Structures are given as C-alpha cells and as structure tokens.
C-alpha cells in the first residue's frame, strides 16, 4: 500500500511538471496566438472579442506570469481549456470531448485485439518452436516494417477504391445522425474496419516476437521442466507455468502502449480522415490553433501518465515479487 502511495505521489509530481510545461511552452513561442486568430478571421472579430481572447489566453497586459499561472490552474480545474480557433467558437473541451471517443474506441479496441492476438500467437509459436507458426513471423514483421501511412494508402487503394468493399474516409456515413442507434453503430463499425485491420496488421508483430522469445526463454526454466515432471496436462504447463511468466514484460509494454493510443493515432486518422483526436490535432497544427494543441497535449500527457500508473498496478497484481512483504 505504501508502494502505491509513493507511486501516486510520483505521478502527481510528474503531472504537475507536465501541466506546467504545457503552460510555459506556448508562452515561449514567438508571436501571439491572438494575432494569428485576428489574421485568420480577417478583422471580423470585434474589439470586445479580441480583448476577451487576450484575457482568455492570459495575455492581457496587467497580469504577471504567476497570476496567469494561477488562473491557468483555476481554468483547468473548471475543465475550461479555452476556445478553439479552428472550430471557433467551440470550446477546446467540447472539441476534445467529441473526438476523443472516436480515438479511444478505434485505437483502444485495436490495441487490445493486437495485444491479445499477438500474445496468443506468440505463446503457441514459442511453445511449439519450429512449427509452421514460425513461418508467420517474417510475414507479420514485414507488415510492421512497412511505413504505416503507405500500408494505409495501399489498403484504401485496394479495398476502398478498387474493390469498393469499405469506405475510404470518415468515421460514419454522411447523413447518419450520431447517437446510440443501430444505424449509427453499424455505420461506425463499418468505417472502422479498414483503419482497425491495418493497425492490427502493422502492430501485431511486436507482440508476437516479444512473446515468442520470452516463451522460448521461459520454456527451459527449471520450473517448467519440473511442471512437466509433475505430470501436469500440457495446456496447464504452457499457460500457468510458461506463459504466465513469459507474459510479464509484454503486459507492461501493453499498459504503456495504451498511453500512446491518444498520441500515436495521428497517422492513422490522417490517412483515413478519421474524426478522432489525432485528426483534430493535425488540423490544429495546420491552423496554429494553440489552445486546441495545448488541450490535446494535456490529454496525451495525462493518458500516458494514467497508462503508466496502470502498468504499475497490473505488474503488482501479476508478479508477486514486486509486492513488498508486509
């Protein structure tokens, strides 16, 4: 328990540092985001709006940096991340709230599928090394070696353009109203197939390779030989004795990869014009939409931290050796 508290304290400090950097960085950039925005709207903003924008960014003259910093925290706790330029006058919080579910469901599900599938293949390939499953390794490695954007474009060219089997872009068919209706869910799933499959195909190799190699290493451990000698059923030796120990490094890798779901989705969503947070970030960068970028960076940072915390907890549950003897 003290271990968990200590970890929690560590994460709080890290989160504070990340959020502070997130505050400082835009203020160190040359130029003024409000100026960029005025240019963008070509004078259609009223003087009041400009003044309030200045206040919003903490750029109004009278305020010192510490005051700005204090206000920044205040706003943060109210969930107020400012207004987006690109989707003006929507708040950053709303933009993130709209796009995050798309990313989380697409990347979350595919990351889990890729991990489970890759680990299972790895378990069998490592257990029966030399079997036909080993032939699968070069194939999966080949797909993970291909740059993702190219793989995505080829998939679009073949399955969307030539075969017309799947849509080439978007998160759901135009004209469908988002909501918990069968029509919308079906359309969203249909649109998720192509990006989802390409993600799994390109990322499964890492899990297969890691798991297979750990299985080979663990298979010659004394406790696995002893488990055979005990006359246990082979399945039990493979899963409970070999795989259970071999999976430990993969599990922490998996928890960390969950953290990169939010940040690592940029390429996928660009290629498939998927309405997730990566696509929004891409638009924000193009439009120099600082508040939105700042908000997304904050979400990415927090996601990585939460995933790290998750990795710690899961490892604690899975490996008794990391638990402190009380």
């Amino acid at each position, binding site marked *: 328990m003290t271990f968990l508290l200590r970890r929690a304290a560590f994460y709080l400090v890290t989160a504070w540092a990340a959020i502070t950097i997130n505050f400082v960085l835009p203020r160190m950039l040359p130029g003024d985001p409000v100026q960029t925005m005025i240019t963008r709207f070509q004078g259609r903003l009223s003087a009041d709006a400009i003044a309030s924008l200045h206040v919003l960014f903490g750029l109004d003259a009278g305020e010192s940096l510490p005051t700005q910093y204090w206000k920044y925290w205040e706003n943060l706790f109210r969930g107020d991340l400012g207004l987006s330029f690109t989707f003006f006058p929507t708040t950053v919080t709303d933009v993130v709230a709209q796009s995050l579910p798309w990313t989380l469901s697409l990347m979350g599900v595919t990351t889990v599928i890729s991990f489970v599938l890759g680990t299972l293949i790895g378990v069998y390939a490592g257990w029966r090394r030399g079997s036909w499953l080993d032939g699968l390794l070069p194939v999966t490695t080949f797909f993970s070696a291909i740059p993702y954007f190219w793989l995505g474009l080829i998939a679009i060219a073949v399955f969307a353009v030539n075969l017309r089997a799947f849509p080439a872009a978007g998160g759901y068919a135009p004209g469908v109203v988002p909501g918990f209706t069968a029509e919308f869910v079906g359309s969203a799933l249909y649109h998720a197939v192509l990006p989802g499959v390409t993600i799994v195909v390109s990322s499964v190799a890492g899990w297969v390779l890691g798991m297979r190699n750990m299985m080979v290493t663990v298979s010659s451990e*004394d406790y696995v*030989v002893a488990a055979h*000698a005990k*006359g246990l059923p082979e399945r039990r030796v493979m899963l409970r004795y070999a795989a259970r120990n071999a999976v430990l490094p993969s599990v922490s890798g998996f928890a960390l990869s969950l953290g990169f779901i939010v940040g690592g989705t940029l390429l996928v969503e660009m290629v498939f014009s998927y309405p997730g947070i990566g696509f929004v970030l891409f638009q924000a960068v193009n439009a120099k939409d600082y508040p939105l970028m700042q908000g997304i960076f904050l979400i990415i940072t927090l996601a990585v931290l939460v995933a790290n915390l998750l990795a710690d907890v899961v490892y604690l549950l899975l490996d008794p050796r990391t638990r402190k003897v009380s």
Partner: protein
Amino acid sequence: MTVLEIRDLSVDYGQGDDAVHAVSSVDLTLERGEVLGLAGESGSGKSTLAHAMTRLLPPPGVITSGEVLYHGRRSSSDGPVDVLGLTPKELRAFRWSEVSVVFQGAMNSLNPVSTVEQQLGDVFRAHRRDMTAARRTERSRELLDLVGISADRLSAYPHQLSGGTRQRVMIAMALALEPEIVVMDEPTTALDVVVQRQILEKMMRLREQLGFAVVFITHDISLLVEFSDRIAIVYAGRVVEQAPAREIYRAAAHPYSRGLLNSFPALHGERRPLTGIPGSPPDLRHVPSGCPFHPRCPSAFDPCDQDTPALVPLGEHRSAACWLHTTSPRRRSGVGAT
C-alpha cells in the same frame, strides 16, 4: 526386488555426424528402497541419464536405443512397464506418481508467480481428480510438516523462502504422491554445506519412513559414499564402475573412481592426500578410441587406447569396465570391444 531397470540406454544430442553421444549403452538397476548414487564430473552424462529415464530430455536430446523398465507395485500384475513406450497420457499419469524428480536447479524449480499451495495443489489436481479442495490443503499441510516447514508457509511465494526451504518444498512436492522412486539431480549443489547436510539427512529419514528408492546424482562423491547404498561411476556417458558404496570407498577398482575419490577430502576416516585427476573430461563429439579414460589414466597400458572395455562383474555385487580387471584382449581378442 528390482524397481527400475535401465537396459542399453543411449542418448544423443543432435542427429547425424554431429551428434553428441551423451549416454552410451548404459545398464543400471535400481532395487526397491535403495539409494543408488550416480557420480561423475560435469558433462559426464549423469543428468542426461536422469532426464532420459524420466523422458524429460530437452530437445535436441534423443533416446537412440534402450529400455527403461519399471516394476511398480501398481503394475506388477501385468509385468514391467517400458517408460520409453508410454503414450503421452500414460506418461503424464506415470510421472510424479511413480517417479518424481528433485532438480539440479531446485532453487528455481518453483514457479515464481504461484504460491506453494497452488503448486502442491497442481500435483493433486492432475493426479487425484477426486480430491476435494479441503483435502488438498490438508494433505499439503501434512507434506510441509513432513519436511519440517510450518504450514503457514503454504501461502508464501517462492521468493519469500530461503534456498533451503525452497528445496524442502520441492522434496515435499516430490513425495506428494508417495512415488516408488525419487530422482535427486544434484539437489543440494546450490546450498551451503550445513543446509545440504540437514536436507540430505531429512531425505534419508523420510526414505526409511516411506520406503521409496532414490537415484542420487552428484559430482560430490564424498556425499555419495555417505548417503548411498550403491554407487555407479559415470564417465563419458558410460558406467565405468558399479559397487556398494563401502567397497568403492575402501577399494575402487577403476582408476577414474580412485581419481574422483582422491579429489575430495573425506569427512570421516583417515587423512589422505588430495590428488585430483589430470586433464579434463573428453569432448563427447570426439570420444577417445578404446577406453575413453585412457588419455587421463595413470595406469593406462597396451590395450587401453584400442579396445573399449566392457562392464564385467568383479565379484558378487560389483563390476567395472577396465582392462586392469579384465582378461587382456590379446588373449581373448575382440571380447568387450563394442
């Protein structure tokens, strides 16, 4: 009464011309309730022999010939069972309930992510399907008590136990199904001498109590002399001498056995100089012609580098494979050459 008979057992690592002949036509018998010591240097094939007779050889180990006949109480009606011919299902049932093993790396023989109770329970779940959970716990407690560990250690993970305790847990596990034979493959090499002695003495008391036979493998021949009834000396994958422990200690017939004995200080008895054995064990891919020990043998003479001596009886209970004790091949040409 014989409980295990090994006949003409050979084991290779790899296949074809590159194969390493780790064990070459070994014959051994194990009597019910006795302690048979297997001694030899590292790489002599003694562990391979133990793994082969329990069919635990890791790839690329292959058993190329021989039989391992088990005369169990339970199978006595239909004669002996050839362990090497068991189907995977029969083999699983045979393992641990008839022959259990305490491993060389016994320190690491426990699964680090399971508690002692889960690992003991696994044995019962696999072999005693009708046992209830409560009965499994009860039996596990009895077993820990048997090896002198308090029952509250059942919920411990291996890393919470000392090396000696882990080894005791392994011994408790090995006795869980009251097997006829316990193979101990260098069971105490990782432990300090005090713990080593405690554990071996415990094991020998349990043997008297439960009546199982032990195959005790070690390179420490002084331990063997003390704890075994009979000793087989292994060199380059062959048994070169077999005799009751006392007789080997008093007067070893094979020069290699004498070398081994002179490599360790005796714990009891008179002092004698430690001499060791010159040279190192042969590369098993290129075993010397004739007697494989002849390049290192202080008493090598004419026939030794040409003909391989066979293991021949030297008296009622002992046998040796050495030209010193066999009629010269020049008089009885060809005999004993393989």
